[in-house]
């Protein structure tokens, strides 16, 4: 290994390690004061690693007791690089946004830990490190969700934690079953997945993994936490939660599902689930009044699209599906991050500059919907590959019309949420990272398109491609106009929708807990305990007697 590549390969471990290390150093009060400044700088090694470290080299293993193995492949690099950009922009933004918050250092620490975990999931290659990074990102993100100590945030936080722990339990069960057949206690993910086809518990493993990762991505009906959690977090927190943390589920599906056509039935199921989620997110999102919740439902919908792409790859055994799904997800990271940050910018803008904020947000929204000549259009063209021109492809193309409507809804609600009376301008330190991110979100897909798809950019500008991108957006705009002009007033569906049904179970749960309390009370009485001792002796003797 030459000297230069040695230094480069150090960048890879530095990407997750630096944020975690900085967070640990913040235990010292003197360092803690600088925590907000670290938020924007900690992602630098991750960005450099995504750009400079050669992809596909042999995995990098840490010395013995650490059992961490890192590797960088194309999907990982795409997600690592774009998420680093969002972490930097949102970090600079957060340092200003939370200027007057006394709990700002605490926010910064959880921010750094979430960052370390999210970088980790994109580059780890072995099973137990993946679990570690996934758990770190998921659990630390609680600190972002529940930062504001309001009753609403407490409820959202409790829900988030509960479902996160549940998801971790599903995943560890799946991981253990996946590794149970391998001689090594902690196999590389690729090796473990290679044995999936012959595993006696193949379908159970896939079900556990899809449920665990689907919970993170917000597959219906596991999406309930997303609009609630993303709605209550401070604006930069929502941006990284919706932009990056959900991508831990995407990389999970990419890494753990073998795209070799062996699981085509599962592919069909995941594609269906993705399409249902894509439409469901749009439908409920259209009724939302808060711009952040509109965006959160849009994330649900977009992750449905990513799920459908991965499912299609699984269905047809398309080895290119992972990198294309990652490309689509990377585009979503930047756009969704920029749109969430716009919510804070709009709130700080007076009437004079609000139009500019709205215009930029509209462009971002149209890019997400895939308007031709935007970066988002390239992402939509790319996913045509795995999805094909069949029913799944057509349904997802049509969903872009829904996305257009949802984005129009977002811009309208953004205007309503702004303080239009004053003539304030947002502070430059808040506006600059946002504008930089917006620029990145619109440009980056153009840079990545050719390396990812192998098709030339010119093909994306052919008349056929332009028309395929244009009609859904035009349809969406017409529908929005019609809806605003003559449409029924939509009644807002409370965030979390189906969760309200689940809350009906609360009395049963508390009755169960009461029952356990009474049982314990009973067991602690002496006569009961004495009888139990006798009963247990008899039970043991009987069980053993049977062997004689």
């Amino acid at each position, binding site marked *: 290994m030459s000297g230069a590549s040695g230094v480069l390969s150090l960048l890879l471990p530095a990407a997750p390690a630096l944020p975690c290390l900085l967070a640990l150093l913040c*235990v010292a009060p003197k360092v803690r004061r600088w925590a907000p400044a670290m938020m924007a700088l900690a992602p630098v090694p991750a960005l450099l690693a995504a750009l400079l470290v050669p992809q596909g080299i042999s995995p990098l293993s840490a010395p013995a*007791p*650490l*059992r961490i193995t890192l590797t960088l492949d194309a999907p990982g690099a795409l997600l690592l690089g774009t998420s680093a950009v969002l972490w930097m922009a949102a970090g600079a933004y957060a340092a200003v946004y939370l200027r007057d918050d006394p709990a700002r250092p*605490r926010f910064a620490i959880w921010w750094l830990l979430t960052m370390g975990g999210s970088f980790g999931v994109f580059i780890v290659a072995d099973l*137990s490190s993946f*679990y*570690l990074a996934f*758990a770190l990102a998921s*659990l630390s993100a*609680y*600190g972002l969700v*529940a*930062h504001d*100590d309001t009753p609403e945030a407490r409820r959202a*936080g409790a829900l988030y*934690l*509960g479902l996160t*722990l*549940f998801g*971790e*339990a599903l995943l*560890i*069960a799946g991981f*253990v*079953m996946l*590794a*149970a057949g391998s001689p090594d*206690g*902690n196999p590389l993910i690729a090796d473990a997945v290679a044995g999936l086809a012959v595993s006696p*518990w193949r379908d159970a493993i896939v079900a556990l993994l899809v449920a665990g990762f689907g919970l993170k991505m917000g597959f219906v009906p596991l999406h309930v936490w997303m609009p609630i959690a993303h709605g209550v977090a401070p604006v930069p927190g929502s941006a990284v939660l919706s932009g990056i943390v959900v991508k831990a589920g995407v990389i999970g599906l990419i890494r753990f599902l073998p795209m070799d056509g062996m699981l085509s039935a599962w592919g069909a199921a995941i594609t269906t689930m993705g399409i249902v989620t894509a439409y469901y997110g749009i439908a409920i999102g259209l009724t939302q009044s808060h711009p952040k919740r509109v965006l959160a439902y849009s994330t649900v919908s977009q992750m449905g699209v990513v799920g459908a792409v991965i499912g299609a790859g699984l269905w047809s055994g398309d080895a290119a599906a992972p990198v294309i799904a990652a490309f689509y997800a990377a585009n979503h990271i930047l756009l969704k991050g920029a749109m969430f940050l716009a919510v804070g910018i709009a709130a700080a803008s007076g009437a004079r500059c609000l139009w500019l904020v709205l215009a930029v947000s509209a462009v971002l929204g149209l890019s997400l919907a895939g308007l031709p000549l935007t970066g988002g259009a390239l992402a939509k063209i790319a996913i045509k590959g795995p999805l094909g021109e069949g029913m799944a492809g057509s349904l997802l193309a049509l969903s872009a019309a829904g996305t257009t409507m949802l984005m129009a809804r977002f811009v309208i609600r953004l205007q309503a949420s702004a303080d239009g009376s004053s003539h304030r301008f947002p502070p430059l330190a808040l506006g600059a990272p946002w504008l930089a991110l917006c620029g990145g979100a619109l440009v980056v897909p153009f840079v990545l398109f050719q390396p990812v798809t192998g098709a030339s950019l010119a093909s994306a500008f052919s008349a056929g491609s332009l028309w395929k991108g244009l009609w859904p957006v035009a349809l969406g705009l017409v529908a929005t106009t019609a809806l605003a002009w003559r449409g029924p007033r939509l009644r807002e569906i409370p965030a979390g929708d189906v969760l309200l049904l689940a809350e009906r179970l609360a009395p049963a749960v508390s009755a169960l*807990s009461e029952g*356990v*309390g009474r*049982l*314990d009370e009973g*067991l*602690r*009485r002496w006569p009961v*305990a004495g009888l*139990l*001792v006798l009963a*247990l*002796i*008899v*039970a*043991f*003797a009987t*069980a*053993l*007697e*049977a*062997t*004689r």
Partner: protein
Amino acid sequence: MTPAASLSSASSAFGALLVLAVIVPLCGLVPMLLCAPRRVEQVALLLLGLGGLIVGAIAVRVAATGAALDDVIGGWAPPLGMALRADGLSVVMLVMTAVVVVATGLFARTDRAAPTSAMPPAFWMLLMGLWSALNLVFVAQDLFSLYVALELLTFAAVPLVCLDGSRKTLDAALRYLLFALFGSVLYLLATALLYGAYGTLDLPQLAQHVRASGTPEPALVLALALMSVGMAAKAALFPLHLWLPPAHAGAPAAASALLSALVIKAPIYLLVRIWCDLAGPPLAAAGAPLLAIMGAGAVWLCGVMALRQGRLKLLIAYSTAAQIGYLFLMFPLAGIAGAAPWETIAWTGGALQLVSHAFSKAAMFMAAGLIAEALGHDRIADFGGLGRILPVSVFAFGLGGLSLMGLPPSGGFVAKVMLLTAAVQQERWWIAGVILAGGLLAGGYVLRVVVPALFRTGGAVAVAQVSPRRQGVALGLALVAVVLGFVPLQPIGFLAIGRAALIGSAP
């Protein structure tokens, strides 16, 4: 060659270390009784250092030779004399005990600036008695010595519960004493039955007799039943956990740490010896499901009870009752046909769970004690803002909780993965379900404490200062539990040292 002969020939100068590990803490009681109360603590600390060195030497010797360390006291071979033996598992227990006992000593030490002693002289004497008893449990080879060790352990542990002499703790201590004696009586009855049937109390010789006779004797069956229930009562295994919550929650923090981390592990260790070494595979396979069912009940019901508690120390106490349930899930998993139990991943997982629970639980009880001292109460509902007052203690509690929840990096995570792997490989899905659900419950009760402490504002007001040294001890123990997460995910060879020789010569 009989095992007795092989034992005495294996006895070496290093074997005397085993005697010293038991005797040194006991001998310390004499100067402690004679010297001035203020000096007791210094003597105790000196002995803690000495005892730690002895255990360290035993561990180094066993690790270096890769064989168990034997000693036959006075050269009299069993059944006439008394044999001591430290195999791989014993050494792990001895080291775990030494680390927790020494850490507790450092935690309980009086500050230099303090005008009065932090702990009464009785605490230090009981600590020494407790340590001697635990060491004896881990190295004794015959049922009578084990009985003596268990009794000494009970009599050292019970007064620790009621050191403050309040009405409530006396009640709890009495309850504990009665139940522990109940367990001892059952154990003694079983010992008598075995002696009557086989004419020896030496465990290796008993194991040989048991394996030599084809169908098990009725006395053996009854003895195993009595011992299992007796030890379950002493270990507070569900549904016999009635004494544990008030006793462990009422004791001073240093004492709670010892009780929860170590004392209940002694009967569990004994159960492992009885089922794995004495009973033999067919009987062990018949008894294991019952033990596992009791364990599952502990994980679930005591887990829910921990979630329901309003006071921190009660929460931790119920969590102890829940966590030991995992150890009993090991019995059916380790007893797979065709493999020696100590070579299975379940055996390693169970041992690791036992050890990492000891470290994390000791850390959590110490942290809880410091929190109660600083706030003047331990009501979880009023913990808002605690993270700012006692960051190190909350951190230590959280790290300990990480291990209980089975999240990486921690010993609890590795243990959980190993037990789960064993359950999956043997397709015992209900055990896998118990482990996973237990992890969720643990997550619930740990986060119920950590989340308000870190994220709620207001509420907590400090009424007393807490020394950084004591917080450091709690944090150190929690870090040990985290470091245990770096052991490889495979059966550990060290745990099998000397075990095959114990019963391997049987026909």
